[in-house]
């Protein structure tokens, strides 16, 4: 694990640090909503001002509830979506405004592993041709050379190279995800964005794929942006963790620090929801039950986005949006976006959520 020297400060000096592979600065992605009223523009605020940095060789785990914008963030980073605002600097180059043609060389260095091992492989194409796709697209290797390298990759990710001519339908979910991994690794990318790579798999298979990804990271010096809604998976793979809520990062820091000393009430609530594999300890444990639903990203609440469900919310939370900054006494590498960060051992259970009605949404 690597400790961030001066992690998420203002990203103005981006690109200067040669150790930073990916620098996301103030990334905003809004989707227009069609058909809901003519007046004004209705927009889904999927990602609303996210800044983060990935250093070479590290794994940044991105957690958050379904619909909080994790996948949209991933697709903006890899430029599958165009950004509404903000910058994505990859290896010193701002790729957020590059044309599709000029983006192609960077596509080689940024690969994605998708969530759905069924949907992400073309059912009508043979596995060998799917894994060979990156070579074909970038004109790297052809003919027998491509075949050889595809077989090598298949072996490396734990597939039988003799299954070269099979179709995706002939593989199990775990094997299919290995195919997806092989395809992502074909061109030896620097950054691999894993969008919930194991959440569609059986738990026993999840471990296999996670271990495979860890092995490959060592061998190929990969940098992972690892997205999951499963904290126990994130805990296992990540060097650092970023917690997302409603399109924003509310807390980011080294894994141990975030998990053992959560500063944001939302992080604490997430952590308290992780199942404990010990019935006796589970009994004692106090869960923080969040009331209410996640507010609609079409019309996010003013102020801190969590204040409607937050046990610690005060009037200030309803008006001002807290910056992402370290809590008093914390290391600079563990900033949190909260006016009233939790102290160690602070109890949150049993407190009513939300500020009084005057701070509500409009």
């Amino acid at each position, binding site marked *: 694990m690597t400790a961030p020297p001066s992690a998420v400060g203002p990203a103005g000096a981006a690109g200067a640090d040669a150790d930073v592979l990916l620098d996301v600065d103030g990334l905003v992605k809004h989707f227009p909503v069609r058909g809901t009223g003519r007046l004004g523009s209705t927009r889904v605020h999927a990602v609303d001002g996210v800044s983060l940095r990935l250093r070479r060789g590290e794994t940044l785990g991105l957690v958050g509830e379904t619909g909080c914008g994790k996948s949209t963030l991933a*697709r903006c980073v*890899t430029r*599958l979506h165009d950004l509404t605002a903000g910058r994505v600097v990859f290896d010193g180059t701002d790729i957020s405004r590059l044309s599709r043609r000029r*983006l*192609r060389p960077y*596509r*080689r260095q*940024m*690969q*994605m592993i*998708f*969530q*759905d091992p*069924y*949907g*992400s*492989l*073309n*059912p*009508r*194409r*043979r596995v060998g041709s799917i894994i060979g*796709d*990156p070579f074909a*697209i*970038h004109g790297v290797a052809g003919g027998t050379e491509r075949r050889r390298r595809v077989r090598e990759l298949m072996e490396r990710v734990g597939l*039988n190279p*003799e*299954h070269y*001519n*099979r*179709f995706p*339908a*002939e593989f199990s979910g775990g094997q299919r995800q290995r195919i*997806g991994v092989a*395809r992502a690794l074909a061109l030896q990318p620097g950054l691999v964005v894993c969008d919930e790579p194991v959440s569609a798999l059986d738990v026993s298979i999840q471990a296999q794929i996670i271990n495979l990804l860890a092995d490959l990271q060592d061998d190929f010096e990969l940098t992972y942006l690892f997205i999951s809604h499963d904290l126990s998976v994130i805990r296992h793979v990540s060097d650092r963790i970023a917690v997302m809520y409603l399109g924003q990062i509310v807390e980011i820091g080294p894994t141990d620090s975030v998990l053992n000393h959560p500063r944001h009430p939302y992080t604490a609530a997430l952590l308290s929801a992780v199942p404990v594999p010990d019935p006796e300890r589970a009994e004692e444990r106090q869960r923080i039950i969040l009331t209410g639903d996640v507010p609609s990203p079409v019309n996010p609440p003013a102020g801190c986005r969590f204040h409607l469900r937050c046990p610690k919310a005060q009037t200030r939370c309803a008006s001002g949006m807290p910056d992402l900054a370290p809590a008093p006494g914390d290391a600079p590498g563990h900033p949190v976006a909260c006016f009233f960060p939790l102290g160690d051992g602070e109890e949150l259970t049993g407190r009513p959520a939300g500020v009084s009605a005057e701070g509500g949404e409009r």
Partner: protein
Amino acid sequence: MTQSVLGELRGTHPPAPVGAPVTVEGRSPWQLAWARLRADRVAMVSGAVIVLIIIGALAAPLFSALVGHGPNEQFRDTGLTPAGLPRPPSHTFWLGTDDLGRDLLVRVLYGARISLFAGVLASVIAVSIGVVIGLTAGYLGGLADTVLSRLVDVVLSFPFLLFAIALVAIVGPSLAISVGVIAFFSWASIARVVRGQALSIKEKEYVEAARSLGARDVRIMFVDVLPNLLAPVIVYTTLLIPAAIAFEATLSFLGLGVLPPTATWGNMLSESVQYYKVAWWFVIFPGVALLVTTLAFNLLGDGIRDALDPRAGRAQHR
């Protein structure tokens, strides 16, 4: 549609028995569809009929030489009654003769050449245009979709016969014009089908995966999207061929297609209408040839559709 094919594959593929030899050869989706088609007796009979018709068409000159009757050769002595009427089926003329004393069987076989050629060629042209336009409109979307979809609307709302008559009046009837007219009026419906399919397929994750790999649009369209909509395209093609054959016959019947004395089923039917009271064979045989051919293609097309999309087929028929 793709989803259901996929689902079926998952469902029907037998799990490999434990300890099975590793040499088990994977069966492609096409092989599975072929296996299902083989089990469909109606489709197989239709296919056999089509093969027979094709053989007949190919062997027409051979047969003509064998019986010594040319397709346009008039046998005024042996082929016509003393009153100058067509002769019924006999030893010499197996299907009888027409009003000019020509051998009807030889002419039906020669007619099959024109019908199949026009039908298949027009369908292939129409499908090629339709696929490219539908794929472009569906995959690219936006302005391209708007323009191409309106173009499809325009073509579909064209009065076909009026256009054909006007065109022939200007350039004169010929086989090439017939094929062109048929293709022109057939591609639009395919383009619509393909566009709809492409719209749904482009949202699949594997298309996104291809984009994230840096694949160009053209590559994605033809390597990733097209194979997944080949099934409806094949079905549509087999159903288009009989329609095109009937189209061609219609044009010939109206004197807008291939000109006499060349034998086509449409021409023969058109000539026979004056003789249906005295020479039933003159009407029946070209008519039956046309009917059997279009029916066989249609039934085969149904069978192929069921084989490629088993769920939809079973829900309706069984």
